[in-house]
């Protein structure tokens, strides 16, 4: 007889998992203290207090399919023992302990064989069956343990004694305990201790805060927005509940995207950690927080992302490192890798809010030219102004998105996880008017998240409030797609461009030194300012398309990330029914687990 968890988290409880748990090497899991609901979209921020409505560990049920990631399977291997009884009604299995609950299967539930112990996270039908089931608390009174019921005894006798367990938060310093009590004819025959250690999920991974590297153009600290909730400053991260001895020599670094508050970044990191962990990653996990929480001024977030990338070298990791970025997190990582500040062994771009031309210069499309400019020669665009300069002698020759991250594929093994069904970076072919697209900005109250929003922010670059209402949301609108009313062809387009000039007038100097020196300034970083605010991309983003060429591999998440194309309907109706921008995290794991397995397998992150 034995109590066996899925130690290696491969979805099967088998001989590889036996004999691993000891008193000195307990099974470790996290408190279920976030607030999940349904199948899609929660903030996943842990430590939600003691309110049963906000803290899933106290709710008394599975809080929707997204909550299943906060459970672990435990196999009660009692088949041989129970074979000794002709009448199973004589046997009772009971649990006592602290800080634990178990999922109470509905009457008649068929249960799991240990070989299927991971089905609740890998099979949508199974997950749906369990998604709203009740849980029961394990009795804290050893003298009055909780009965698991006759049906579970029956399941255990068939070799299907797998129970799904969750941990609820305990006062600091309290170790969770779990003890099986086996009763026959109401007499306790024996007990069996399962050695367990539970704790805060934020004590299972590392964290690094780079938000202090985001500066305004005047050099002052960018500060944090309170729109999405404050980081309360009292949280700490350690690996006390998942020490390095339990990891392999690899590290997985995760960088969140735009419009994520400091507090929100905790949710992103905790959720991605949990998913990678549950599917077998043994890599040390490091979550990175940066300041991209800039309200609707997306250009500002880009400026801050590029600054953060430049400072990424302060993160101290070595050995085999896999980095993953979501959305604008890829501006951070792209700049970090391009500059050489941080060079991982492999790099996953997830719904990357980065123009494809930053990696592959030949991917321009006329559909990214603002409507007012379609009949104007392309050499007059702010996007192509850099061509006026020899970049070997004049830094202005580098003021372009084209090839801005061209070294990324050279330095590291890159996989682009993209989704043609995504909304925020949708192509919206044929719609290229800044004034029309600017209405996308009216969606929502806090950030630029509507369908076509990325294209819209590229189209409104440089526009004024009369041309595009959205431009008034941008702090430093310049150049871009705004026509220059004072354009004089005789002056040449360096000094008098067809587009409205950059705010830094020295950039337009005919003197190479003056112009080049201004473009080279790093405090503030003039080039980052211009890429973010004044130089429009001329290609779609990597989030919606494969990046051609050999240096970047591509995975279409709509094909390879879904199981037979099945996807939730919650928050996915009408034109938003595909793999959306944040579905990598928002959608419950049973729907998208394959993409996490793909990430784990590409880096062999499951190795011991």
């Amino acid at each position, binding site marked *: 007889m034995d109590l066996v968890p899925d130690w290696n988290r491969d979805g099967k409880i088998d001989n590889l998992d036996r004999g691993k748990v000891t008193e000195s090497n307990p099974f470790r899991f996290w408190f279920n203290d976030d607030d999940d609901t349904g199948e899609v979209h929660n903030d996943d921020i842990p430590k939600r207090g003691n309110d049963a409505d906000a803290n899933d560990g106290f709710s008394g049920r599975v809080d929707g399919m997204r909550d299943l990631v906060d459970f672990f399977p435990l196999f009660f291997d009692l088949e041989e023992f129970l074979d000794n009884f002709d009448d199973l009604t004589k046997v009772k299995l009971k649990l006592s302990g602290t800080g634990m609950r178990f999922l109470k299967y509905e009457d008649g539930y068929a249960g799991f064989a240990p070989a299927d112990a991971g089905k609740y996270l890998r099979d949508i039908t199974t997950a749906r069956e369990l998604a709203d089931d009740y849980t029961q608390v394990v009795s804290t009174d050893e003298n009055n343990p909780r009965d698991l019921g006759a049906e579970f005894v029956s399941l255990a006798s068939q070799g299907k004694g797998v129970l799904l367990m969750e941990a609820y938060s305990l006062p600091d310093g309290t170790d969770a305990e779990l003890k099986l009590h086996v009763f026959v004819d109401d007499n306790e025959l024996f007990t069996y201790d399962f050695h367990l250690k539970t704790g805060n999920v934020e004590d299972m991974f590392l964290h690094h805060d780079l938000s202090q590297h985001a500066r305004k153009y005047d050099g002052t600290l960018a500060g944090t927005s309170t729109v999405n909730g404050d980081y309360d400053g009292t949280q700490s991260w350690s690996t006390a509940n998942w020490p390095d001895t339990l990891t392999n020599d690899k590290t997985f670094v995760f960088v969140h995207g735009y419009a994520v508050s400091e507090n929100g970044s905790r949710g992103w990191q905790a959720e991605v950690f949990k998913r990678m962990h549950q599917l077998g990653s043994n890599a040390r996990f490091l979550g990175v927080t940066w300041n991209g929480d800039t309200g609707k001024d997306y250009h500002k977030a880009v400026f801050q992302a590029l600054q953060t990338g430049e400072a990424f070298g302060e993160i101290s990791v070595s050995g085999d490192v896999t980095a993953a970025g979501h959305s604008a997190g890829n501006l951070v990582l792209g700049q970090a890798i391009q500059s050489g500040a941080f060079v991982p062994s492999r790099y996953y771009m997830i719904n990357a809010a980065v123009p494809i031309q930053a990696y592959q210069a030949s991917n321009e499309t006329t559909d990214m030219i603002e409507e007012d400019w379609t009949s104007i020669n392309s050499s007059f665009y702010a996007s192509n102004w850099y061509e006026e300069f020899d970049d070997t002698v004049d830094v202005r020759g580098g003021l372009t998105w084209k090839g801005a991250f061209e070294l990324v594929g050279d*330095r590291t093994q890159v996989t682009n996880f993209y989704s043609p069904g995504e909304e925020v970076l949708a192509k919206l072919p*044929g719609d290229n008017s800044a004034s029309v697209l600017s209405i996308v900005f009216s969606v929502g109250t806090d950030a630029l998240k509507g369908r076509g929003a990325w294209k819209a922010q590229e189209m409104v670059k440089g526009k004024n409030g009369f041309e595009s209402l959205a431009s008034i949301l941008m702090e430093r609108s310049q150049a871009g797609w705004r026509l220059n009313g004072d354009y004089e062809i005789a002056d040449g387009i360096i000094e008098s461009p067809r587009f409205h000039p950059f705010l830094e007038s020295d950039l337009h100097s005919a003197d190479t030194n003056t112009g080049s020196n201004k473009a080279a300034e790093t405090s503030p970083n003039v080039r980052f300012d211009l890429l973010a605010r004044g130089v429009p991309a001329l290609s779609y983003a990597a989030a919606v398309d494969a990046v051609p060429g050999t240096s970047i591999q591509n995975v279409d998440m709509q094909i390879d990330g879904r199981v037979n194309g099945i996807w939730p309907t919650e928050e996915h109706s009408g034109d938003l029914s595909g793999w959306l921008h944040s579905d990598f995290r928002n959608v419950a794991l049973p729907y998208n687990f394959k993409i996490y397995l793909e990430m784990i397998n590409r880096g062999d992150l499951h190795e011991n």
Partner: protein
Amino acid sequence: MRTSFYIPLCFLLASSLFGQAILVKVVDDVTGSLVEGAEVTAIYDNPASPKRYDEQIKQTDEEGEVRFNGIGTLGASLRVNRNGYYGFGVTNAEHFRYSSKELKGGVEEIINLRPVIEPIALYAKRTESKTYQSGRVPVPVVNDWCGYDLGMGDWVAPHGNGKVADFLLRFDREFVRFEKKRTPLDVRRKAIRGKYERLGKEFTEEVFKLEAGDWDIRLEIAFPGEKEGLIRVEDKFNPHSVLRMPHLAPEKGYAPDYTYSLKTYGESAWNQTDDVGFFLRTRVVLDEDGEIESANYAKVYGDFKIEQDGDLSFWYYFNPEVNDRNLEFDPDQNLFPEDTLGTSSFYLP
């Protein structure tokens, strides 16, 4: 798949005055008959409205027609469903969308809906390589013919375990020059060498040329037997339909070979698409008169993708039943054993 048909003047006039009109006629793609009772959804995208999407669902009348009117400041999309048919513009098919410019003044559409006729078991696979579930498989030799066995899903011996060459491939490449990039070549060499070292792979000058070079690539597809061949499908390839290609492989029209001449550089770089397909006729046995006695049929979705390092990917369906031209796949009946690489997530018919 867009075809004009007559729209009453008053309808267009009304549309320009009160919104943007969409007139849809749904036709059975096989019989050409009008489809009554199809559920058509028009979704007008209007970010200025509180709920953004004005989703209207209506059924086609006895003429197979349905009319919509709405405000689509950022365009509109269409989807069509009917029992017994493959969906159009739905999940697992490309969305069908009008831009705001196309929508202006009203539009009309004939949508050819493909019926469900006889979905069958087929060998269905995407070529695979080292990765978990997606990726590419290298062509085993450069500038030499090698055969591929669609039923085995592998190269034929000596390059794999395949037994019958359904088709032959010859891949060749020519180095043109190093890519023109801002980063100096010595910096790129150092970067790529570092990547290979971190991944524990050998770095050579040939590797560097493959990573940093401009290449001309040639991929030839041919067949070992007479009257075998392929047909490139463009007009009849409908990315908006869950069933992308016609149900049956044609009886005639097969070409003995097909050649891709690709460049990795310039404006026509990587000029390949997923919005075409191929029908293949293979394993042909001729009778005494030189007529086809038996053959097998297959289809391929998208172009055969090839890169300068020889990584190849293609997505195919193969019918092992001799002389059966039916290529309408039942996704629940993949003949490859479960867990065969390249067969997961194979949900398109």
